[in-house]
């Protein structure tokens, strides 16, 4: 236990951001946002601005139009358009504006401009994360400030999470839509095979070589497949509509297509053994909760953080933690820990209870600290789950692609040979074909599951996924009156 204790002076931030903080810890006028915007614009030629006037609005509108109109759009385009164009997102940014205006009144010249970009997979994810980190950093810098700053923080938290959520939703909707159209295409092929069988059956009926029941068996198969195809087509249309909503497009902008197929599986997948550490470092909700915890401590008058304890230890209770403190004073050498463990531990500040004005405040604080620890544990688990889903869905999809489908192909090829030898008949051949198509649709489902899991990885590391953050209320409740 003692080995896990570690004093952490500054929360680690991505390089991009820490470069924007001056040596004395004060603010530079534009903070990091302009620089993020510039860098991403230079690298990717894409940019998203917080629309604050008619000029910007017109600009965004024409950008969106050029991105989608008469085009078949990629997942990244869908994400970018959503980030540019989603009105709910703009509303969240406006909240930041309102809060910042209040803060401005207090004399703090912060005017955040949110540069957001979306491009090739991976890079886009990083950028989405960087933006969140920036906003969080802003809050970090301001955590010593009063209620106005806390409200800014709240609004900023909202917009960060909203940004991430919109990006994730756009990506997911795009995957669902493309996959649904791919399913339709394969069902159409299955239908064609059933159609051929139905026609052949009816012709055999015409020559007197097939009973009515056997003809009907072939025809009902075709009729059922026709129904299934129609259902799949409807599902594909609804999936596209969901994407349209996230992208916030309407009118002429609706004139775009989603590809009829998902991208192929990547050649290999990233191995990320440090996924827990990454999530602990980057999860917006977690880091904000921590800042809020510190604000809460301030509001209780617990002014000085004496040490940090990891989420792993907090569950052991306050007494254990205090014992460790006593030992720590005697033998400092034992505090040394390897960096790997530091990476894996989520540090929670502990305030010296001796300086607490009230016993009640200490309990209140520890309650909040434990809730934070619980959140950290959940974040770890979510990260592991997301990574497992990513790895396993990749293996499953690859299994379908490289084991199941070749076997189906072999069956179909051999089926044609036995058909040629008049050993099996046309219906057997068409059945083999249909079964291959069924396996193909299973394979498509597996591929879809992989791309969804891939998208889920981003949410698990940066936030904005389905897990509610919920900690924003804490500061408002506890911090207001003290």
């Amino acid at each position, binding site marked *: 236990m003692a080995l896990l204790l570690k004093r952490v002076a500054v929360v680690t931030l991505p390089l991009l951001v820490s470069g924007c903080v001056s040596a004395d810890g004060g603010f530079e006028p534009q903070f990091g946002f302009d620089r993020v915007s510039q860098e991403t614009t230079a690298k990717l030629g894409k940019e998203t601005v917080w629309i604050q006037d008619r000029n910007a609005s017109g600009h965004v509108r024409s950008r969106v139009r050029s991105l989608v109109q008469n085009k078949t759009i990629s997942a990244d385009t869908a994400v970018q358009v959503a980030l540019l164009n989603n009105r709910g997102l703009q509303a969240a940014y406006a909240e930041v504006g309102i809060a910042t205006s209040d803060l401005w009144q207090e004399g703090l010249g912060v005017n955040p401009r949110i540069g957001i970009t979306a491009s090739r997979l991976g890079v886009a994810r990083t950028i989405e994360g960087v933006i969140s980190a920036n906003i969080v950093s802003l809050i970090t810098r301001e955590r010593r400030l009063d209620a106005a700053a806390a409200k800014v923080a709240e609004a900023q938290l909202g917009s960060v999470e909203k940004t991430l959520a919109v990006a994730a939703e756009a990506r997911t909707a795009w995957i669902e839509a493309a996959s649904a159209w791919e399913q339709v295409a394969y069902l159409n092929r299955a239908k064609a095979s059933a159609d*051929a069988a139905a026609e052949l059956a009816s012709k*055999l009926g015409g*020559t007197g070589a097939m009973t009515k029941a056997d003809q009907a068996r072939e*025809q009902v198969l075709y009729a059922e497949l026709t129904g299934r195809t129609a259902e799949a087509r409807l599902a594909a249309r609804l999936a596209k509509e969901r994407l349209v909503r996230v992208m916030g497009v309407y009118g002429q902008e609706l004139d775009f297509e989603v590809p009829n197929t998902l991208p192929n599986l990547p050649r290999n997948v990233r191995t990320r053994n440090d996924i827990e550490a990454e999530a602990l470092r980057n999860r917006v909700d977690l880091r904000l909760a921590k800042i809020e915890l510190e604000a809460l401590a301030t509001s209780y008058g617990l002014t000085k953080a004496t040490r940090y304890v990891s989420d792993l230890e907090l569950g052991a209770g306050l007494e254990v933690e205090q014992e460790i403190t006593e030992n720590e004073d005697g033998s400092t050498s034992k505090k040394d820990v390897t960096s790997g463990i530091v990476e894996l531990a989520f540090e929670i500040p502990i305030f010296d209870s001796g300086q607490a004005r009230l016993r009640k405040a200490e309990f209140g604080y520890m309650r909040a600290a434990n809730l934070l620890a619980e959140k950290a544990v959940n974040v770890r688990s979510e990260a592991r789950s997301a990574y497992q889903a990513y790895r396993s869905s990749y293996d499953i999809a690859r299994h379908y692609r490289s084991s199941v489908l070749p076997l189906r192909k072999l069956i179909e090829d*051999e089926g044609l040979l036995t058909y040629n030898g008049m050993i099996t008949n046309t219906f057997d*051949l068409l059945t083999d074909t249909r079964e291959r198509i069924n396996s193909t649709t299973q394979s498509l489902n597996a591929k879809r599951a992989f791309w969804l899991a891939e998208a889920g990885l981003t949410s698990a590391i940066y936030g904005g996924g389905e897990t509610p953050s919920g900690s924003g209320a804490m500061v408002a409740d506890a911090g207001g009156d003290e």
Partner: protein
Amino acid sequence: MVSRRAFVGAGAALAGVAAWSKTSAMSLPDAPIMEDASTQPPLAPSAGPDYNPVVTPNGWTLPFRMNNGWKEFHLIAEPVEREMGEGMTAYLWGYNGQSPGPTIECVEGDKVRIFVTNRLPEHTTIHWHGMLLPCGMDGVGGLTQPHIKSGKTFVYEFVMQKSGTFMYHPHADEMLQMAMGMMGSFVVHPKDPTFMPVDRDFVFLLSAYDIDPGTYVPRVMEMTDFNMWTMNTRVFPNIDPLPIGLNERARVRVGNLTMTNHPIHMHGYDFSVTCTDGGWVRPEARWPEVTIDIPVGAMRAFEFDAHVPGDWALHCHKSHHTMNAMGHDVPTFIGVDKTSVAKKIRQLQPDYMPMGTKGMADMGEMSMPIPDNTIPMMTGWGQFGPLEMGGMFTVVKVREDLAKGDYSDPGEYEHPPGTVAYEWTGELPMAAKAPDAPVKTGSLEQKSATPAKASDHSGH
């Protein structure tokens, strides 16, 4: 088809065996192994009384050695790979490298000693089908002798009490071992060389296997639905012909070790049944035939004077026994217009060829790819076109210019001008015709297959 060169080669291969049999001492006789499925030349006796040896189409004769007045043979029961036809090999059990095993020949009155070595994974015995012998030599495992365990060698000794045509096969796990191809012919020539002499003497066994297209091993539990109907474990078009010189007297000995009877039919001749496995048929008891039904587990020999040259079919008259592997669940497509269906199927299966709409003869003409290790259902080509045959079918080739003892394939028969059926190209008289009757069919209307418009399918 066997070529002259193949004969020379095969004769040379066995010459070493003959040389050995004169010099070897009291040890276990060597067991020659045959690796070729082509017809081997007749094996003239190396010792003992003389006889006119038989020819086993797509088979061979086991050499013997004399040892103190005993004719000694050595059979090895073992797994073999038998080429049933070009491009189709079966993994069977047989004797001395082949299935069927080598033909054993000897003479009435001979003292015969047969060594049987078992290299199978399970025990076996050999029953000498039709032979008159001491009960303990009858080869019924458990009943008349202990089984020959794997790796063991047993000796059978008996005196040939009568001449005739016999068979040998296991009588231990008999159903399986025969389904795996274990059998052979056993010919005993008369002591008197002037008794029933012939110029050409052929012997073959009928056997049947169920080998799924694309596989190699027979399904030994199949009782009725076989798909490989063979003569000497060989199927048309790869059964060697029976060449006979014009005006020669020929004998064909046929044994049946399948599970059904086979009406063996020969074109161009009427013949006499002269021998069963019970013995020779007295002349006054013979009657003329063109088809002789061979019962299960029986042997029949028929004879004729080959006085009409030509290529004469010799085959089982059960027409499905002159077919190779086929599916019994293929619907009858006669009269079905597959044009539009074929177009649809080709979108999914570009190599699809519609077949059977006029009959099945297109199968014989189109040589489309079929599964590995499979012989087309109906196949073979003659000078006038596809033969559309398989299984138990071969050709008796009667030729004027055939040398004595020449068993190589003389090729296609050159018909004298004006002796082949020809096409009529002149006027045809009007045929009488009944008034048209209304046609009623059993076709189901296809209403139900068309979905509702609202479902937005792409339509036909």
